[in-house]
């Protein structure tokens, strides 16, 4: 097991390489020196490349690449946080209904014929409301146990799926239904500076706060009595993690649609590399998640002339990866 610093160095290096490759790959393949010239120009170091290259790089690829990295990192760290908080290695960030809620919001907006920016807003709202609903259900049950919250999340997810089913049933099968289905499979095709910038602050702030909170996640691994006698404000710490992870996931999902596997698999990959210490897992998972989604999204837009939905690729790559991880860690999955 190498130290965190070494792991972060190598994975960041890999991220930079992936970033350069992603800028260069696509329907129009741009040579690496053009990409570097473009980056130099952004930093006011060199002259701009051709107008076409600048347009493709700045307006099409850069916002999409930034979104892919942030969403990958966001899903990975909220997955890590939830797995630690709920003492359950099989939990993913949509445990409390964020993804299904966001899908309902998006589907509702599509039915209303809204623009893509509005769809994004509705998705964000839907995701946040679903988690709020789950928390309220837990309150109604008058317990503070983690397991009831999980149950409330399952209830909320189930309900949201029913609403989604209804919306799909009501949708116009030629126009709206494919749009809803496509949204649910996840894609970064529609990401532009205009859609990215409104959620960027919330995404970055909640992500940064969660990373700053990383050491406390280790405390939350213990049982209730221990957490409280160690001087942690248990309810507050837990609420903070849920709030931050929810904002992070909702902001991610509203940009990209639902993307499976990242929040589940990447934390385990990070743990395999660095051990169980969540304070180290969290930053590493962020970088690995960024690499993974950037790679997937680059494949999605370069493999064929059409766009391949992200969840298809994360599923095809994530499933065997997960099987392999479980195989490698079989002692630790309990």
């Amino acid at each position, binding site marked *: 097991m190498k130290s965190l610093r070494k792991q972060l160095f190598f994975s960041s290096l890999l991220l930079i390489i992936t970033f350069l490759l992603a800028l260069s790959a696509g329907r129009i393949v741009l040579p690496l020196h053009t990409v570097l010239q473009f980056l130099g120009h952004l930093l006011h170091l060199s002259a701009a490349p051709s107008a076409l290259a600048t347009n493709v790089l700045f307006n099409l690829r850069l916002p999409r690449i930034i979104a892919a990295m942030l969403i990958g990192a966001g899903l990975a760290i909220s997955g890590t946080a939830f797995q630690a908080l709920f003492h359950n290695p099989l939990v993913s960030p949509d445990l409390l209904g964020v993804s299904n809620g966001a899908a309902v919001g998006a589907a509702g907006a599509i039915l209303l014929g809204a623009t893509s920016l509005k769809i994004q807003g509705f998705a964000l709202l839907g995701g946040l409301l679903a988690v709020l609903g789950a928390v309220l259900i837990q309150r109604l049950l008058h317990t503070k146990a983690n397991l009831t919250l999980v149950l409330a999340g399952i209830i909320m997810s189930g309900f949201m799926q029913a609403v989604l089913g209804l919306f799909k049933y009501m949708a116009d099968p030629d126009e709206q239904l494919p749009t809803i289905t496509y949204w649910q499979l996840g894609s970064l095709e529609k990401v532009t500076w205009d859609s990215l910038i409104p959620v960027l602050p919330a995404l970055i702030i909640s992500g940064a706060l969660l990373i700053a909170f990383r050491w406390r996640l280790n405390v939350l691994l213990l049982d209730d009595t221990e957490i409280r006698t160690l001087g942690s404000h*248990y309810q507050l710490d837990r609420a903070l993690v849920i709030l931050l992870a929810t904002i992070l996931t909702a902001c991610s999902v509203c940009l990209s649609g639902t993307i499976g596997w990242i929040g589940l698999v990447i934390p385990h990959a990070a743990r395999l590399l660095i051990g169980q210490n969540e304070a180290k897992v969290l930053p590493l998972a962020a970088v690995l998640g960024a690499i993974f989604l950037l790679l997937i999204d680059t494949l999605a837009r370069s493999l064929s002339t059409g766009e391949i939905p992200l969840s298809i690729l994360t599923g095809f790559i994530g499933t065997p990866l997960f099987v392999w991880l479980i195989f490698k860690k079989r002692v630790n999955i309990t």
Partner: protein
Amino acid sequence: MTILHAEKLGFHYQPEQAIFKGLTLTLASGEIHTILGPNGVGKSTLLKCLVGVQPPNEGQITLDDQHLNQLSPRQRARKLAFVPQVNASSTNVSLTVFDYVLLGRTPYQGLLATPTLQDRHQCEQLLAQLSLTAFSQRSFAALSGGQQQLVMIARALLQEPDLIILDEPTSALDLGNQVRVLKLINQLQQQGYGILLTTHDPNLALMLGGAVSLFTTVGGFETGPVQTTLTSEKLSQAYQTPICVTTVAEQQRQICFIASDFSV
């Protein structure tokens, strides 16, 4: 000098079924106090009340004249440390021993802070003092029960508390490890920590000395020095079994044994 005082404590899940009632006890720095009683009389519940996790239904608990529930968890944790029982729910944590013990610094950390170099150094020193350095990079979950118990005590010590409350610290251990833990507890008392522990083994209380509180099955509660509280008569009544307390001449120590006839 820190004093934890519980006055006329009462606890019940249902009003007609009191777990305990009118219970008064005091723990000060440098003292040792053993809570003794059969299974299911509320020892663990009492501990949860004393560490501030479970509010009692009646009575009040003060820590240095301040109400326990008015102190923040962080303030409490700087004076009062809790060592839970070694069992599945508290031990299924695969942090390394070092990272696990380091959690004892929680009461000194800001919400968004990570332990400083000094915290880590302090943790290393403590592990060395307790001869646990060899284990420091091992997974906590993979340790034996005895090692886990010592590591949990180490975590409590890193909180730099004045008082340490331990829930059945020897119940999961073999004899050799029991003695190791008992010696450590004795040492800690001599260093000035106030120690309160539960057990269902009267011999443990006889070995540790100090004060003892005896829960009896009928809901009674008696506190006093070990010599006068742990008599054959009172123990027999508490455990509803003939128990005899006697002095072993060679050791100059009191022990208790079960005096009933096993040949049925």
